[in-house]
């Protein structure tokens, strides 16, 4: 095995190639400076962003794009806060005008306390967005039937939750994540629920193409260091998946030769 075979040539979504398999959110940081430093440390090339009203009383307030330049990162506008298909389509049309691209993250959420994906509304919004030429990366339930249907509708990436948004509970249903990946012909990302580096690595070991997370970095005690940890976790998890783990056995299997011992 040489260094060339250890390269990971990255992943492709909607014809765009990314080397980093970590996609990070830009929300919940203490400051825009901390946002910028954390995202740089994460090595991410794609970042999710929200679409909100400009603050008219302070038009010269610092803007995200001054700290996380869209020339350097692929912005993935989201539909956070949208609870209907109409709201999601309206929000992303504005995002397309503001940013000039059509690769988007669709999320239509149910009510607190779980903010679980509202799949009926998600299907409706996905159909409307695809008809309007958007390339839709879709946040969804860890439901292989729903995931397959979204893919057949034309979604460009399937993004089942590991656990509820911001919960930090990790990948609580790894069997279904693996099942969704096994049947998919488009990239599968675990989106939401990751709390620490081992959980990001675990998501990658399941075979996912990438991981999307936000709070795990933003709400760490030291976000920049956690961002670096996530970068390495995703790389490690990908290599572990490609390497293929050894079989499990409850019995021991000696690592040292059992012959040639001294008498």
């Amino acid at each position, binding site marked *: 095995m040489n260094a060339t075979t250890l390269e990971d040539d990255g992943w492709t979504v909607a014809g765009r190639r990314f080397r980093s398999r970590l996609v990070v959110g*830009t*929300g919940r940081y203490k400051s825009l400076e901390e946002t910028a430093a954390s995202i740089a440390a994460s090595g991410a090339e794609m970042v999710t*962003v929200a679409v909100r009203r400009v603050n*008219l009383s302070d038009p010269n307030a610092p*803007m995200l794009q001054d700290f996380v330049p869209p020339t350097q990162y692929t912005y993935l506008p989201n539909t956070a806060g949208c609870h209907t298909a109409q709201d999601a389509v309206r929000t992303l049309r*504005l995002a397309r005008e503001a940013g000039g691209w059509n690769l988007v993250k669709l999320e239509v959420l149910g009510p607190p306390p779980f903010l679980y994906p509202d799949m009926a509304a998600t299907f409706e919004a996905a159909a409307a967005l695809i008809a309007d030429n958007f390339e839709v990366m879709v946040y969804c339930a860890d439901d292989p039937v729903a995931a397959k249907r979204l893919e057949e509708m034309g979604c460009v990436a399937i993004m089942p939750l590991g656990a509820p948004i911001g919960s930090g509970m990790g990948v609580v249903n790894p069997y279904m994540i693996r099942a969704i990946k096994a049947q998919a012909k488009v990239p599968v990302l675990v989106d939401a629920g990751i709390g620490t580096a081992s959980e990001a690595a675990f998501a990658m070991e399941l075979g996912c193409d990438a991981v999307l997370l936000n709070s795990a970095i933003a709400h760490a005690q030291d976000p920049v260091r956690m961002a670096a940890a996530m970068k390495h976790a995703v790389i490690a998890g990908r290599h572990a998946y490609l390497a293929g783990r050894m079989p499990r056995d409850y019995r021991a299997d000696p690592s040292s030769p059992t012959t040639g011992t001294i008498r």
Partner: protein
Amino acid sequence: MTDTSLAGTRTAPTLRLTVNGEALSLPAGASVAGLLDHLGLPRRKIAVERNLEIVPRSLYDETSLGDGDQIEIVHFIGGG
């Protein structure tokens, strides 16, 4: 809610707008470009919606505002 009127005289007709949920008045005939200038908003990476219709950036100058228009001006902020 503040009214940042540019022209409040009786003789000059004004447009009463709602911009991002706030009442605002501008002289009749104002365009989207005039509104953005009045607000002091940089045009980079914002999007404007007028009565639920997107106004393309290339049409800011030539798009006249009407009395009672509902305007939304948005940009990207941090989000997950």
